[in-house]
């Protein structure tokens, strides 16, 4: 018989206990605690996913450089090279991303 890893009853009891605790704290103090805790958790999760967020930031930057959707990759590459002459690291990364886009387009 496979080992049981999840307990629906446990989850329900835990959820109910959490909700009761939240309501109790809210009633006693008159303030929401969970929103603040969730914000802190969100910030922590954001830090753990820094690499992914940095990659997303690069992707967003590339999209901004692309401007209109009808602009082709060669034009985007030319534009990026023009704008990043003094930013070698970024030029190389974005250049590689555009090259990957060109390769995908040709495939």
């Amino acid at each position, binding site marked *: 018989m496979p080992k049981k890893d999840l307990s629906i009853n446990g989850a329900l009891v835990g959820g109910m206990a959490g909700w009761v605790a939240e309501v109790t704290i809210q009633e006693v103090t008159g303030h929401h*605690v969970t929103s603040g805790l969730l914000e802190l958790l969100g*910030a922590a999760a954001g830090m753990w996913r820094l690499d992914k*967020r*940095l990659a997303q930031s690069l992707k*967003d930057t590339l999209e901004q450089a692309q401007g209109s959707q009808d602009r082709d990759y060669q034009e985007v590459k030319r534009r990026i090279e023009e704008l990043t002459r003094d930013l070698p690291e970024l030029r190389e990364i974005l250049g590689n991303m555009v090259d990957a886009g060109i390769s995908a387009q040709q495939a």
Partner: protein
Amino acid sequence: MLGLGLLVRLGRQVLAKPVADSGVLPAGFYRHLILAALEEEDFPGALHYLKWAGEPLLAQIIVLRLRLLSARHRDRLAAAQDLLRSEVSAARREQYQALLGEETRALKLLREYEVRALAHLGNPRPGLTEGGPSRAQSG
């Protein structure tokens, strides 16, 4: 009774900024703050934490974003100038003049941000050509 929620919130509001501004937190936290600011296009916020992030790539991203934004404003400025040249109505001309003023102010502000970002890369001068690289590609 001073509630726990109030304490948590008060602690965050009173201490979060001074602690972050002291630069004692890990570099990863400042990178998180910069990326969050960039997602909202909050350039002053991103620039504020740049010195503690220890990541030149972030400064380069900020510079490129600023140049792209400058290019957009430069296009709008040129469009407003064209409209102003062809407009004869005084009321419209006044509107275009106001628009020109706003676009000029925006460009000046973006240039200031670019200088600040470039200073983190050891390059205090914005742009590569006369008027900046964004002018070279804006047409």
